């Protein structure tokens, strides 16, 4: 009997421990090992950081050559004081890892197509897409290029060693929360991972193209309609380089192939990428010269618009060594400060947004893909075989063909083995992307962080190849400048707007625009420079640079800056957070004239009245803004849906500015007419039909108390694993895509910065996140309310003799062991 009791008890104990030490599938999600996860000495409780956590520490590492002291202020911003640059970067790596390790590794896993290792099979589509785009191939090329430069090589080595010093100090209980939740362990960092991270930024900012969608449009619409639906230039465009500014003489003369026009005919492709970078990945930056400011010194402003996530893409830091002193935001995953200021100048970037990724149709000899046709003969393909690890499943083996197109070895991203969402044809497309070219972007930041003047800045930014950016600059000596820097292919008119034949040399890129020939502006007479992702130049620029650019923010910023004088940093903050809607300002008079009250029901008229009385601002509390945004989105569909009804599934839709300018130019705009009816529809008819369409949704929002713009938009900053419990939802913030405050639902100003370059720099900044990536820390989301409220923090460029300042809360000392 006793033995039975014993066995039974032992069995129950065993089962309990087994059950608590096993990952179960609950609701399709793998659970953590609940025993370890709940154990107060091992699991998530260990990540519940004390609100009075003491970050003070004394750390010794043999990799250091001197002393480094890190002063943390009350916002947990580290002020790193090092005797040597590489020691400072070691510590930057250590701090990035200490506060953001999980995010750093996740970004690299995403970049290199390793999501399936964490997510299981649902990550496979992403992984294949990224590997076939050649992300790892690009990072390997970048690593080789980086290693040629001793300065960046030693910087990367120091940074990597710093990250690994922290990784190696981790125990089961000190692992970041997400590793415990998902159930895996961090790997060692490497320079290749830093390169993968930079390629991830390249992907986010320069891998958006509409080539396939445009090809379908070109094949479907008659040429006259095509030209009207996708105009190459916008009337209201106020380019980055003001109209009339002379350009340097052209040094490369790309020649269009004779078969150019016929090559695209009837080439309907239905390919669709499984994912695309956000079209709103844009930004604002501007600088005003001392002639326009109250202090007489320049002010530089920058707010990069990116996906809003927790932990944030940015980590605030000051790095001070005997040779340089810089403050700003850095990328966890890479050394140096990316956007910020030093003792002499300030710098910030917006996305260049040009089309630097094109597709070439490849003809393989047969399905083995072993040979492809180029310039009349067959050439041997190179294969890159990827073994994709999948959590809980056998590896997936993907072999990607690489073909030599002129000087470039390009991956054949789409073929019979991979459709990427393709539904009909069996064509093969190689991808030519500037991120595959050798370049060393980190060299830009090592030089930029130390820049003292315009020529230092120019020399620094010339190292930027991918992703190309509009680099704004202002200096205490009074200089302001902007350079539209990047590795831009010199294209003939229309080149790369569509997929191109890849069977001979004629359609290949014929060269890159030399780095010193890019459009730039240095101390312009108007007293300011600015960019907001609009087309950088007008038609007088000798090279073709594509047609898809958002223009309204740039238009508004230039208008406002031109009218301003006696500017203070507070004026600039007000401008950065301004919710005025320039598209609405242009369109509303036309809408008011054409809304036909008689054709609307009482309910519909209620919303028409809200719109008519709207003040053209996407402010908090505005119901008119909700009506306008809903109306405008639906009008875009209603106007063009009939023309697109028979178009291939994946056909480019006209840009917003195309409809806006079409209507403004001609109130009997050709596409207003519904081609399916005998009558000729007018703007008035279309507005009536849109009001009828949107009223139920607006009624629903009103019933839920969500008609106010900020509630309707419901901006949220999501945890990177999309776990709602770790995200911030329904933030009270105004703005929309075309406002200077371009805050959308999950996208917007990821860092706002205003730097006044007076004798003692006056600096302000804020980002929607917090310094700690730990959801259990009070510093996890501590800046979000300040950001949503349009408020800034004063950025403190600490000096060595301020160690006793009351803002210093903790001190971390690093020395050689």
């Amino acid at each position, binding site marked *: 009997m*006793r*033995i039975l*009791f*014993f066995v039974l*008890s*032992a069995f*129950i*104990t065993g089962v*309990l*421990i087994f059950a*608590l*030490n096993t990952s179960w599938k609950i609701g399709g999600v793998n659970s953590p090992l*609940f*025993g*370890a996860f*709940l*154990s*107060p*000495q*091992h*699991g*998530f*409780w*260990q*990540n*519940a*950081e*004390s*609100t*009075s956590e003491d970050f003070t520490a004394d750390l010794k590492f043999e990799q250091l050559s001197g002393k480094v002291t890190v002063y943390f202020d009350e916002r947990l911003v580290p002020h790193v004081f090092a005797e040597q640059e590489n020691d400072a970067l070691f510590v930057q790596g250590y701090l990035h890892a200490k506060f953001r390790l999980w995010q750093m590794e996740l970004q690299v896993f995403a970049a290199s197509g390793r999501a399936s290792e964490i997510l299981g099979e649902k990550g496979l589509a992403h992984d294949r897409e990224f590997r076939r785009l050649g992300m790892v191939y690009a990072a390997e090329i970048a690593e080789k290029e980086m290693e040629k430069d001793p300065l960046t090589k030693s910087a990367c080595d120091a940074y990597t060693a710093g990250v690994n010093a922290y990784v190696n100090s981790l125990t*089961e209980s000190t692992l970041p*929360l997400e590793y415990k939740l998902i159930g895996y362990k961090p790997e060692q960092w490497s320079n290749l991972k830093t390169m993968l991270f930079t390629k991830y930024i390249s992907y986010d900012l320069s891998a958006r193209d509409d080539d396939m969608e445009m090809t379908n449009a070109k094949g479907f619409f008659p040429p006259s309609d095509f030209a009207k639906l996708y105009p190459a230039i916008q009337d209201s465009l106020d380019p980055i380089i003001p109209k009339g500014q002379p350009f340097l003489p052209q040094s490369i003369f790309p020649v269009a192939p004779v078969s150019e026009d016929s090559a695209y005919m009837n080439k309907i492709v239905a390919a669709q990428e499984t994912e695309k970078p956000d079209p709103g990945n844009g930004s604002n930056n501007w600088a005003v010269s001392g002639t326009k400011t109250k202090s007489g010194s320049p002010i530089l402003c920058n707010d990069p618009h990116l996906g809003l996530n927790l932990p944030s893409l940015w980590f605030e830091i000051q790095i001070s060594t005997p040779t340089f002193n810089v403050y700003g935001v850095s990328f966890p995953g890479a050394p140096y400060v990316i956007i910020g200021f030093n003792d002499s100048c300030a710098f910030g970037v917006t996305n260049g947004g040009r089309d630097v990724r094109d597709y070439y149709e490849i003809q393989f000899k047969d399905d083995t893909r072993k040979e492809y046709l180029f310039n009349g003969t067959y050439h041997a393909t190179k294969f890159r075989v990827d073994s994709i690890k999948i959590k809980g499943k056998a590896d997936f083996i993907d072999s990607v063909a690489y073909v030599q197109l002129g000087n470039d070895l390009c991956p054949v991203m789409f073929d019979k083995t991979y459709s990427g969402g393709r539904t009909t044809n069996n064509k093969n497309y190689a991808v030519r992307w500037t991120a595959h070219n050798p370049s060393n972007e980190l060299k830009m930041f090592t030089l930029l962080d130390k820049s003292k003047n315009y020529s230092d800045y120019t020399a620094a930014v010339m190292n930027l190849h991918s992703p190309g950016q509009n680099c704004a600059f202002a200096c205490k000596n009074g200089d302001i400048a902007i350079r539209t820097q990047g590795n831009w292919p010199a294209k003939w008119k229309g080149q790369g707007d569509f997929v191109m034949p890849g069977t001979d040399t004629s359609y290949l890129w014929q060269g890159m625009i030399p780095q010193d020939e890019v459009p730039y502006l240095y101390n312009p007479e108007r007293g300011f420079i600015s960019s907001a992702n609009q087309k950088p130049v007008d038609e007088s620029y000798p090279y073709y640079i594509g047609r898809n650019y958002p223009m309204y923010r740039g238009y508004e910023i230039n208008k406002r800056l031109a009218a301003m004088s006696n500017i203070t940093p507070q004026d600039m903050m007000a401008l950065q957070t301004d919710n005025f809607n320039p598209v609405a300002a242009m369109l509303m008079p036309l809408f008011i004239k054409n809304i036909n009250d008689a054709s609307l029901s009482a309910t519909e008229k209620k919303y028409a009245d809200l719109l008519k009385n709207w003040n053209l601002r996407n402010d908090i509390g505005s119901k008119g803004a909700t009506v306008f945004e809903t109306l405008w989105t639906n009008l875009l569909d209603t106007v063009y849906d009939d023309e697109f009804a028979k178009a291939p599934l994946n056909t480019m839709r006209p840009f917003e500015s195309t409809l806006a300018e079409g209507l403004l130019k001609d109130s009997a705009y050709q596409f207003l007419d519904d081609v399916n009816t005998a009558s000729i529809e007018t703007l008035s008819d279309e507005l009536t039909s849109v009001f009828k369409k949107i009223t139920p949704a607006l009624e629903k929002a009103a019933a839920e108390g969500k008609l106010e713009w900020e509630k309707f938009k419901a901006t949220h900053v999501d945890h990177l694993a999309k*776990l*709602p*419990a*770790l995200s911030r939802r329904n933030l009270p913030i105004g703005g929309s895509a075309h406002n200077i405050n371009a805050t959308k639902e999950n996208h917007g100003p990821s860092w706002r910065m205003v730097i006044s370059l007076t004798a003692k720099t006056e600096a302000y900044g804020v980002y929607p996140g917090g310094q700690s990536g730990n*959801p*259990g*820390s*009070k510093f*996890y989301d501590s800046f979000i309310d300040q950001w949503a409220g349009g408020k800034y923090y004063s950025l403190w460029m600490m000096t060595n003799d301020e160690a006793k300042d009351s803002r210093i809360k903790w001190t971390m000392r690093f020395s050689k062991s």
Partner: protein
Amino acid sequence: MKFIASLVLTALLSFTGCLFFPWWTIAIAAFVVAALIPQSAGKSFLTGFLALLLLWGGLSFWISSNNDHLLAHKVSVLFLKQDNPWILIIATAFIGAIVGGFSALTGSLLRKLKQA
């Protein structure tokens, strides 16, 4: 007296063990203490159960209080679909307790088996 001694010893051994070894060290601690200190099977179970209930409950409460329950709020929403740090603390304590209780019971029954 044996009850108090067993309870304190189980908690202490669990705590120290878990500083160096995985979470299931608590099972070994409860098992060993129950096997060495003679008590009735029922009392042994209660000892192990209470020792871990107090240890895990106390530790998680103490950690969470110092954290203003910031993380417990989030994790409770994540797993329990309701914002209640207390349920999470109670769940933690109970999971530890049930493992502690059955381990102690097993230890006690083993001792009785050998005595027989």
